[in-house]
């Protein structure tokens, strides 16, 4: 098991390098100069200087220089040459904290001049992880519950009701659900704040909105799995030996029916925790999801690469976690 984990982690840098190369090539193809305020164009010589500043005038130079700083090589060099120490001493003399230099430097944001990609990720990823965790939690609890309810009496009114709720969850876009929730619960009833983040109250509506599609999917997966398992021989055996109905359902059936849900949970958690552009926009959540869209629109190449690498890493790590859990819950899998 540990061997498997190490093997998978060893492949991570290689996968990230491939993703970096593809992402950069695509980002490079986006037309326009990301450094310009589109409405006011400076003189051509200023534009020339802009591009030189970040190596935006040459693909190979950009490719190499980005790898140099993102892998920490540049930091290592500056440390070895004593440059880092020099800068620190200068700052001390002037009486100011020295500029922080991360080891793995993902570069500056081209759109937000005063921020580095590291800082943007550091401030927005925790928000998305929190919101994503809450959403998956809601989805898991209610989705499983609804799935089990539906499976106990297939085609009963209860089953039909969970089915229709699931359908709504899957098919209604979240900007509609989000806006409706916002208008009803925040504007009319005044239960939850608008455009605020940081309290449990402010998290309720966005996490429900974000959880709905996942919840619906989990409900369908659980129902399917349960109906399958409930017809199996070992369930009849359990009932025959006189086990209580809830023991049969929860202990014997659900444990087996849950496996497809678990494998869905890996990518779902990664997806939920890297934010949603729509939910973040409707509820003004300062998460990372908006950057996937905005960075591309703004041609902010450093940020595009940064958030893509974060998403790729999360996807790989969560799939790994799920695989570990899988083996643990169901020892039959090796």
């Amino acid at each position, binding site marked *: 098991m540990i061997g498997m984990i190490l093997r998978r982690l060893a492949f991570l840098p290689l996968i990230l390098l491939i993703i970096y190369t593809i992402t950069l090539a695509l980002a490079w193809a986006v037309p326009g100069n990301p450094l310009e*305020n589109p409405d006011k164009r400076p003189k051509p010589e200023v534009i020339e200087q802009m591009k030189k500043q970040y190596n935006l005038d040459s693909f190979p130079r950009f490719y190499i220089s980005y790898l140099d700083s993102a892998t920490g090589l540049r930091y290592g060099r500056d440390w070895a040459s004593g440059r880092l120490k020099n800068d620190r001493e200068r700052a001390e003399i002037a009486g100011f*904290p020295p500029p922080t230099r991360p080891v793995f430097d993902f570069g500056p944001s081209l759109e937000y001049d005063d921020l580095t990609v590291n800082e943007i990720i550091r401030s927005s990823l925790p928000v998305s992880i929190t919101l994503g965790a809450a959403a998956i*939690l809601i989805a898991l609890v209610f989705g499983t519950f609804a799935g089990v309810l539906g499976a106990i009496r297939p085609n009963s009114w209860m089953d039909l009701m969970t089915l229709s709720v699931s359908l709504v969850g899957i098919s209604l876009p979240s900007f509609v659900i989000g*806006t409706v929730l*916002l208008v009803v619960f925040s504007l009319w009833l005044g239960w939850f704040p608008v455009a605020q*983040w940081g309290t449990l109250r402010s998290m309720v509506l966005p996490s429900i909105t974000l959880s709905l599609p996942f919840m619906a999917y989990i409900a369908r997966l659980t129902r399917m799995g349960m109906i399958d398992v409930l017809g199996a021989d070992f369930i009849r055996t359990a009932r025959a030996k006189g086990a209580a109905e809830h023991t049969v359902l929860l*202990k014997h059936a659900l444990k087996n029916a849950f496996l497809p849900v678990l494998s869905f949970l890996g990518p779902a958690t990664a997806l939920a925790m890297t934010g949603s552009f729509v939910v973040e926009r409707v509820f003004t959540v300062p998460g990372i999801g908006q950057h996937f869209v905005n960075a591309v629109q703004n*041609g902010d190449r450093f940020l595009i690469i940064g958030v893509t690498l974060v998403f790729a890493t999360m996807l790989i790590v969560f799939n790994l976690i799920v695989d570990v859990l899988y083996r643990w819950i169901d020892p039959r899998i090796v």
Partner: protein
Amino acid sequence: MNRLLIPIVLLAALVVVALRADRPQPKADLTFANLSEVNTLDPQRMSWMHDLRVARILYEGLVRNDVLSADFAIEPAAAESWSVSDDKLTYTFHIRKDARWSNGKPVTAEDFRYSWRRAMLPDLVSDYAQMFMLIDGAQAFYDWRAEALDAFAEREFASTSEQSQAAEDLWDETESRFNEMVKMIALDEHTLVIKLEHPVPYFLDLCAFAVFCPVYEPLVSQYERPDPVTGRLIRRPGWTKGGVLISNGPYKLTVWRFKRDMRMEMNPYYWGKDSLALRTIEIPSISDPNAAVLAYETGALDWIADNTAAYRGDMVADKLAFRAEHADRVAELRAEGYDQFSIDRLLPQDPRAHTHAVSSFGTYFYNFNCKPRLPDGRPNPFADARVRRAFAMCLDKKTIADEIRRLGEPVASTLIPPGSIGGYTSPKGLKNISDANNEEERQAIIEEAKALLVEADYPQDFVVTLSFNKDAGHDLIGQAIAKSWQKNLGVQTQLNQKELKIFREDLKNKQYVTARAGWYGDYGDPTTFLDINHSTDGNNDRAYNNPVYDDLLAHAARELDPTKRMAILSETERILVEEDLPLIPIFHYATIYMFDAHKLTGLSTHPRTKQNVFLFDVLGDGIGPDLPRPMKPASNEHTGAQP
């Protein structure tokens, strides 16, 4: 079964831990939505309106505009007085002795030299570097540095330490070159002398522009070091963080959480702090216009600086209905000289009245590609000014302003919004079917336009493409224009909707026939609009090239007499909007504010659309004088405040 609970327990623990970390802050004295997240708080790097708005809260330039005066007069700020030499070339500023940075250190003439030098460095790539080139020696310094950097990049070095030393040496040389070349002299700590390259009548207005605000050298220079490889100054972000930034304006930055909020507190060392009526200002980052309106309606916001919600047209219509219900009282108040916000304050309270359409310093127009040939090599009919005139005459501007935009925006016949620049008389503009009083007049204008097309031998099989980006209702405007050209001139049209980035590239490369455009002025002089049509200007998307126009601009730049100069500029604009029409002005923009005039005061109604938030007062909050701050008449005829 217990094992199944593991994922649930893990997730729940994560949420609880994360939520313990931060709590929201108490409500500030003023909370407003700036709509876009601030791009930078480095004044020399700014170019966005939402950044400039925040800069004026945090920083203070040598002078500032009195935004509450009818003529937008220049008033003292960091400089308490100034004098101008007779040849209008030398400006001497006396910086006030009590001007302080937010850490208590005095603001000196050297601070301005340092900050303006930053803008003149090619390394910093300031969008507005061009404005600083008016100073004697600045252009030569910029060019020298740019060449020196290019030369540095070509040089071979024996070792990295040698290269790193050479980068430091080049920087030292740059500093001494600046001292030699650029005519900006600090006579003493508080006296700054600036010599211009040629007289610039609006130089003081530029000094009031936030890009000319000072930054604190001991802090900023820590973050700007020459790069050992390229020799360029590398900007490391970090000095604009809350609690780190040191600024010299009315407020200091205490918190800036990216995409979340920004908070400012009164600068305890600010020389004019007794006049401030807000202790704290909060700017939550709300990027969705609908969320901003909802937040306003739940009372979380005091002011929306730019309401762009798709349904704002309906909100403006509601406001007009409200005004109509009180038509008599409104007329009465208007006759007494009250400004639009004061009128709202004196009318009964009503939620509909919280929407305010304010005329803006910008114009929506359509560009013609003026090149002799089109991108595909065909001759371009729009290279002929007569064709452009004919098309301009038959564009139904009124329908666009009244039925599509619905924001109460005035139809435009000039590029510069009339009345926005003191001392400038706008030309009349070309006749347009929207001006016609009756069907007969309208037909006469159309016949005249058709005659122009015949005269210019306009090819009837030519298909006019209208290019626009797909956002913000440009498609509806494009359809209306195409319809009015088809109907009135009988020409063929084609709509060409594009993705924003591609649209912009096409404009830049002149890959279009006609295209939508807009322009906002930066400073209070007609050249802020007229320069974009100069044959060599970087923003001349029309490829318009008329030597007479260029000559007139050059002539105006040499003219020392302000009245004569304005007359020349007026003639320049007349050529643009009555004869040559490389662009068709359609309407002048309005900005939609949301605020309660009974509660918030100190906002300017001047068409330059510049708000100084430090002038705001929340009425009845017990902080500051709590008295209405209406617009004042032009400063040279001050008669005291309005009742």
